């Protein structure tokens, strides 16, 4: 099953990436990929790293508040609400963001109605910022769920000890809690990284700006030119990028004594 549905298509696409239309071996697909889409490849990496960093920071903040927060009501509300986007597919999230983030969209209209902005000051976010916002909104609950779970499972005595010695909550979070949940956080972030690399709907629906993400270029190559070679070369580049993420992850595991 794995062979038929994963390994065979993977090998096939790798081979296609290195062959031209006549079937001869070539690197032409890659030179075309870099010539036309070099900028988009860089842009994809930047967008996804930025999203991953924001997700990590926000997940720590949410998890930290759930663990260390002192107002039971606020903790209860946050616990109840933060998981919602988890159940919404990317394509739905993208469609919502299209109307929410536009220049005259729901967000700006609300701000104008509340008197916070004037119509002249509004800015549309339907570009790379929209992609980052959608990714963070969608993937944050997933990572926060893992991180909050790990934090809740921590031995509370370390936290109490630090607190008795007079450490503030922020200091406890950064110096005591986060290092202990780091492996879980990394797993969550790497899985998010890989998921975001593969999303087509969000960049295609939210942002029309050039540069765009690799997935859009792959779809375009196939739909408009029927050019599977270059599309597969781009796919190969995106495997390579996720491969780097996986390598970092495995290396960490080995450094910690083979425990992934």
């Amino acid at each position: 099953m794995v062979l038929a549905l994963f390994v065979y298509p993977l090998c096939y696409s790798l081979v296609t990436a290195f062959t031209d239309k006549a079937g001869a071996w070539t690197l032409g697909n890659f030179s075309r990929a870099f010539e036309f889409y070099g900028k988009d490849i860089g842009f994809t990496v930047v967008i996804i790293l930025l999203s991953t960093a924001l997700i990590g920071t926000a997940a720590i903040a949410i998890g930290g508040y759930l663990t260390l927060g002192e107002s039971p009501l606020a903790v209860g509300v946050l616990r109840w609400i933060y998981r919602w986007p988890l159940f919404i597919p990317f394509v739905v999230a993208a469609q919502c963001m299209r109307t929410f983030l536009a220049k005259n969209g729901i967000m700006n209209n609300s701000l104008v109605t509340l008197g916070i902005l004037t119509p002249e000051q509004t800015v549309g976010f339907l570009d790379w910022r929209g992609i980052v916002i959608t990714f963070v909104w969608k993937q944050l609950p997933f990572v926060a769920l893992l991180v909050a779970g790990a934090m809740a499972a921590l031995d509370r005595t370390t936290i109490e000890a630090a607190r008795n010695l007079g450490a503030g909550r922020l200091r406890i979070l950064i110096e005591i809690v986060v290092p202990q949940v780091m492996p879980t956080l990394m797993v969550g972030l790497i899985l998010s990284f890989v998921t975001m690399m593969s999303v087509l709907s969000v960049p295609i629906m939210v942002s029309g700006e050039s540069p765009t993400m690799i997935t859009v270029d792959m779809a375009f190559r196939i739909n408009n030119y029927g050019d599977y070679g270059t599309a597969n070369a781009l796919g190969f580049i995106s495997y390579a990028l996720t491969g780097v993420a996986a390598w970092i992850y495995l290396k960490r595991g080995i450094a910690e004594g083979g425990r992934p």
Partner: protein
Amino acid sequence: MTRLKFLLAGVALAMLTLAPGQGNAQKVTLNVITAGDQNMVDYVKDVLAPIFEKDHPNVTVKSVGTGPGDAGSQKIAEKLQAQKATSAWDVDVAVIHQKMAGDLVKEGMLAAYTKDVNTGKLSTSQTAKNALGQNVEGYVIPMFQSQTAIAYNPAMVQTPPKTFQDLEAWAKANPKKFGHNGIKGGMSGVAFVVGWIYANTPNADKLISGPYDQAIETAWAPAFASLKEFNKNVIITPGNAGTLDMLNRGEIAMGPVWVDMFYTWMGEGKLPPTMKLALIGPGMPGQPMYYVVPAKAANLDLAKKFIELATSPKMQAEGIVKRFNWYPGIDAQHVKSQLDEKTWNKLFVDVTPQDLATKGKPFPIKPYFDDIQQGYEKNVMN
């Protein structure tokens, strides 16, 4: 196992019943195959078929879709080529795109049927005679003509541009008020880019009629350079729908759209009824789809009668114009008497039949078309 056997027996029985010539010899199945969206398949099934079956009680119309785009036409062509050697093909009427129609005519796979059909002479447009460089006169009648145009918000644009040159000047004077979706977000943006090339290159006709000669592409460089400059003053929207969305919210004042999509959205209340269209010169691309009859269709005569119904002024008015907001496949003046004034005005006031005749251009032949898109990626986007 027993269950599987039952299933197989059932399938065999079903095939026996469906096989032509079995049982009632009078019964005929007319196979109509459509490359296009599901709504076109439904149109044949729900609108045309019942009328045709009423007039021909022994006929059942079977409507099959092969999916949108050239890929859909490709499947129909492959089906025909596969049964080339047999004497009666199981496709009676096909609805296909321009590129494939040209190829099939060249290969001698289609019947020259339009002379035998009363409505054949009602369609005299350029696209009824020539499909992306291939002469198809006599073999095709357009089902509809879809067209791109510039949609604008009259509240924000007092004098709409008449040409691409006007538009260039307007966008410079009104930065970030024109929006198009580039080439990766749908065909309305692609059509805009093609229109730009037509407007800014010396031999645009050659791109449409061929033959392919890569040497003339050097003349495109200034057109791409000016488009790159133009793009600095415009907004790139997320897709065909994105342009319409932004027009609706007043974020942009103008943008290229498909005319049928524009009116459909307006009909659904997703665009204000005050919005208008302008087909700017020297022209913007559009494309027809054709009714064709395969050379060895099993039911040649019925196929001709079916197309005669489908291209009759009445059906063109009610089906194509009113239901889909497409321009009719036959010449507009024949359809006019069948339409109420409101529908006619809606479709032909902003873009007149003359505009359509002079400024409605076909897309370029395939190799030029690919090169224009690649050129845009290389010279404008990078």
